[in-house]
């Protein structure tokens, strides 16, 4: 909610001209969600400091339909950090309050506006999401000296550690317009969040504000990716427009991907392979999520009937959108059906299919609820073939980033070793009159096996 800009040149008072803001009084501007104030905490012969302070309306932030509060931070509460932090709302306010200064125009001090001048800028409570030193990585290449002070979460509870908020001090010799534009772009980049929906004109905004400094920035890809809210089509467009050889590195990354294909592709292939072997014509994908497997099933001419189920209606909506179901012909629509269902309830609609796939599903269900899942799948739906995949916990040792004993995904309720999994599968097979065969998916390690394990059940 606060930025200060200090200038200590020969005539510090010139800062008022450069910013087009009179140093003698508080000037206020209406924003749609509150007010912005400009005032001068310091005004002396040695140094002049201007402050931009936001006074945001917490209630308006919640109720304004054009404001998008990040669910990660607010849970739709009046209690959220936006009124206090220096985020994309601050960028928006800068664009409004310092519009002329950001263009670099200054009729009364044109030479000063065009020159690099000694500046010190402080930013209060900047939300930073990412590794320690991110602000330095972003600002130092631009010629700033960066001082970072992390705010503790709560001094009364030192064991909680630091918050994600940083008080930043930038010192350097830059043109004022460049300094303002850099902050304008990098605030939402550090936060990795924006208070509005990113639309197509965002690319143009980025290119204009990044003029003269962004295209040569070593973290250019990172900056445009975050600034453009990780929208792939936009980042590609932005990169094309900023002529630079960085594109080549991206292509190389894509190439590397092709030689070692991602596990999720291998997993899908293993599942499809099993379905083909079993000559499954009708398939239920239980826990289909956004429909990654459905897409492949749908493209497979040997599969005539496909049902995708998920416990979340929202997820099914997304799958429907991703698969463009509404645009399909009636015949195609009949081939693929989406149903809300749950693996822990018996569902008559899922009976009579050749195969059922539970790809990376069981580990998202509490152990104590697995008997209900088995009853629903093996006992009630009773497909001829059941394909289950789940992580192999032993292989986790080979993931350097994964702390010992922790899971690959925050929602995993358990991860099984090969023997854990095999014990469960053989119990199920015995109880429900199936046979079971185990396979590994992904690169095989002699000691730890494969990253994913697959069980293929056949009804006796």
């Amino acid at each position, binding site marked *: 909610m606060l930025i200060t800009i200090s200038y200590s040149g020969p005539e510090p008072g010139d800062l008022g001209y450069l910013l087009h803001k009179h140093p003698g009084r508080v000037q206020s501007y209406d924003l749609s969600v509150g007010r912005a104030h400009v005032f001068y905490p310091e005004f002396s012969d040695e140094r002049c400091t201007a402050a931009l302070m936001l006074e945001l309306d917490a209630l308006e932030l919640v109720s304004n339909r054009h404001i998008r509060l990040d669910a990660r931070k607010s849970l739709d*509460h009046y209690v959220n950090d936006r009124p206090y932090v220096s985020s994309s709302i601050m960028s928006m306010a800068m664009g409004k309050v310092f519009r002329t200064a950001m263009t670099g125009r200054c009729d009364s001090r044109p030479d000063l506006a065009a020159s690099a001048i000694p500046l010190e800028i402080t930013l209060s409570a900047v939300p930073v999401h990412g590794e320690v030193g991110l602000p330095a990585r972003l600002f130092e290449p631009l010629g700033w000296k960066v001082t970072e002070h992390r705010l503790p979460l709560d001094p009364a509870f030192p064991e909680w550690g630091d918050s994600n908020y940083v008080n930043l001090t930038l010192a350097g010799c830059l043109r004022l317009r460049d300094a303002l534009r850099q902050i304008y772009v990098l605030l939402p980049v550090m936060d990795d969040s924006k208070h509005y929906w990113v639309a197509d004109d965002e690319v143009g905004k980025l290119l204009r504000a990044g003029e003269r400094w962004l295209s040569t920035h070593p973290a250019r890809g990172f900056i445009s990716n975050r600034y453009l809210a990780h929208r792939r089509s936009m980042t590609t467009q932005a990169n094309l427009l900023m002529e630079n050889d960085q594109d080549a590195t991206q292509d190389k990354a894509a190439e590397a991907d092709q030689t070692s294909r991602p596990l999720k592709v291998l997993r899908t292939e293993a599942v499809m392979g099993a379905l083909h072997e079993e000559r499954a014509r009708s398939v239920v994908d239980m826990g289909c999520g956004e429909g990654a497997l459905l897409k492949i099933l749908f493209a497979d001419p040997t599969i005539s009937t496909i049902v995708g189920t998920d416990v979340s209606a929202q997820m099914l909506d997304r799958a429907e959108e991703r698969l463009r179901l509404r645009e399909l012909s009636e015949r195609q629509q009949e081939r693929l059906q989406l149903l809300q269902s749950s693996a822990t309830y018996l569902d008559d609609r899922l009976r009579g299919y050749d195969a059922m796939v539970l790809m990376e599903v069981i580990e998202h269900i509490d152990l104590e609820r697995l008997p209900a899942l088995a009853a629903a799948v093996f006992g009630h739906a009773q497909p001829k073939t059941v394909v289950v995949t789940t992580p192999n916990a032993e292989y986790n040792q080979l993931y350097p980033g994964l702390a010992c004993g922790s899971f690959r995904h925050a929602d995993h309720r358990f991860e099984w070793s090969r023997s854990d999994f095999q014990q469960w599968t053989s119990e199920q097979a015995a109880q429900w009159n199936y046979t079971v065969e185990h396979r590994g998916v992904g690169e095989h390690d002699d000691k730890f096996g494969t990253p994913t394990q697959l069980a293929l059940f056949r009804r006796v």
Partner: protein
Amino acid sequence: MSELAIPELCLVVLVGASGSGKSTFAARNFGRFETLSSDTFRGMVSNDENSQEASEAAFEALNFVAGKRLEAGLLTVIDATSVQTEARRQLVSLARAHDVLPVAIVLDVPLAVSLAHNALRTDRSLEPRVIKRQQDQLRRSARNLGREGFRRIHTLGSMAEVDAASIRREPLLTDFRHDSGPFDVIGDVHGCLGELRTLLGRLGYQLEHDSQGRAIDAVHPEGRKAVFLGDLVDRGPDSPGVLRLVMGMVARGNARAVPGNHEDKLVKALDGRKVQVSHGLAQTLSQLAAEPPVFQDEVREFCRGLVSHLVLDGGQLVVAHAGMVEAYQGRASARVRQFALYGDTTGETDEYGLPVRYAWAEDYRGPATVLYGHTPTVDAVWVNGTMCLDTGCVFGGKLSALRYPEREVVEVAAERMWFQPVKPLAPPLVGSHPRPSGTEGRVSAGDRVPGALKISDVLGKQLVSTRTHGRIGIRGEQAAGALEVMSRWATDPRWMPYLPPTMSPVDTSSLADHLEHPAEAFEHYRRDGVATVICEEKHMGSRAVVLLTRNPSRFGAPRGWRGTAYTRTGRPFFDETLRVSFLDRLDAATESAGLWKELGTDWLLLDAELLPWSFKAGAMIREQYAAVGASATGALADATRALEMAAGHSADTGELLQRTRERLQNAAAYVAAYQNYSAPSDGLDGIQLAPFQLLASEGTSHSGRPHGWHLELADRLADADPVLIRRTRSLVVDTGDLESCAGGTAWWEALTAAGGEGMVVKPQANLAVTGKRLVQPGIKVRGREYLRIIYGPDYTLPRNMARLKERSLAHKCSMALREYALGIEAVERMVAGEPLWKVHQAVFGVLAMESEAVDPRL
């Protein structure tokens, strides 16, 4: 004047040429909606009643409507010529598809009459040759009606007969709804006369004997009636003796009986038809051979006269030998009889060569209690409101009876194993109980696992009838919203017989600087006619439901299981180790408070608060509340400092500086408010349970007991273990007494000034009804400082307060009432031993309601 008798529920097909007077006859004898006329349907689908081209579409529509009516159990009359065999065949199959009897009423009037009628009609006129052809078709096929499947055929041969005829509706043979018993329903006897005599004696019947000392009747002094579920004969030592006694009881009105598959076979054998003489039929036949022929004839007549199943007690009780699905109850068709005798077999056989049966009871969702036998099991147990009373007496098991309406099982052990079973008796598959350990193994096709619920029990639009608040509708999208939470996070439905309702906040305060204040709560209850309320302190923890049990099998849990504690969305609080130590401590407290004994129970269901809040919500406190506090205090301090510097040389900063200073203070107050909710806990250390209501214990729900009773009970637990159990402070207020209300307000002020969250005001009597309307079970009045962590640090700024006061509570209040009623209903159902799906349906309803978007700050 002749009376044509037809069953109350049947499909009546009027047969007759055009102009034979069918429509007039139908209009005189049936209700306005009962008759479906093909002409009307022709008109509906084509705008022309006479259009022959529209016939196909018209009959399709007519069949559809007739099907819907029959499905709903409504007598239906088809007014079409129906003179062709093919047309009638379709109607007979329609009747069969809905298990109702097809009845034909033939209007066979002279051709001249039809022609004359037709000539008089102004709206249309058929050529005489068409009518002549219809008449011929009728005459040719009329004698085949019986063979076509019509179970009753009435023929009216002249206009005079048509005009004179009237309809008499007779109850179905299965219909004994007027008979409310009380009954003693007895399972498969299989010739075990000794055990039957003992059982009747134990049930209070007095046997009567003939001159040879043979039992020929049994009379209950209180006028109770025995109901025999079939399979009286075969395998056992004295089938004739059993028949003599039962036939005597039925003949004198002391018993009713339905046939079993063994009686069905016996009749066929006695009729001299070819049957496979096995399963002990040979014994019966040789035992009967020793009886005089007149007795054999009586037996044959008795068995032949038995009706597939009986609907008793206003439709609340259905008895049949092998069970009866809801769709077949009170219906009549070959397959209904087949189901009643043999159950629903899949056509497969198991490893013993016995037919594999579809476990229909596991899927049963009907309102009527169904009592049946046929499948020998170890114990008679309830499955979704059905009970199999065949406990394998002849195989050395027990002979069982259920006293109805008392629903009490009375059993007599077999005197010996009279017949070697082909396979060992199976323990029952039960909806609310697990398979006893040691009997796991292969499960046959169609078997269901205990505790399995169907997706259709919860998904889609649901209507839940509640004892306290009428029928509560759950919309499809609400249910859809709850499915994920229920499936992915909640504990096993068998262990979650209750979810707490949301609670409405107090009406918005009239005081300028308060959003909530006790005055409005007292006023609310005074208006609702509640004179005495109790104020209970609102603990700064998480809502918790605790199920503590010494009898895990009551909840379908494995041996040694002690219970669970879960959140308001059904999510377990503890990991395995902590759960066990928590429940052990709670059990010990319950023991030393003497509550197990006093309440005569081996389980308790408690509504409580679990402290500290940080135990469950630690991450939320850190990541949301503390984060906001850190950014607010940090940034506002910087801004204040900057403004103070500016104030030195700029005159107009005053107002902004003052506002910013105030906001900095608010931020500090906010931090102080959430800090109250953080306390360290290590294992059980630091964790406290504050129970405020005992929802239920075995046999009883306690929602009708005054809150004073509940709190006193909680205090006794707290006395027993003051470290683990926390008291709930309370104060009784008389809503009609200003001084008492002021006392309540002062109490709240003191509570919240000390950092407390606030209080909940409840009717002291607990479950309260004004007129016919349910009263809010509780109203929360939250403290002024606590509300900062709900409405934001600056909610007390006048500009914010004014806007926040516009909040609307109506929807929240209505949801709170419905969720409360659903929660109570779930507990009542569980206590009454109702099937798991019914309990779960109400529990799911609470969660479904909660999926609705309502202002989360209320």
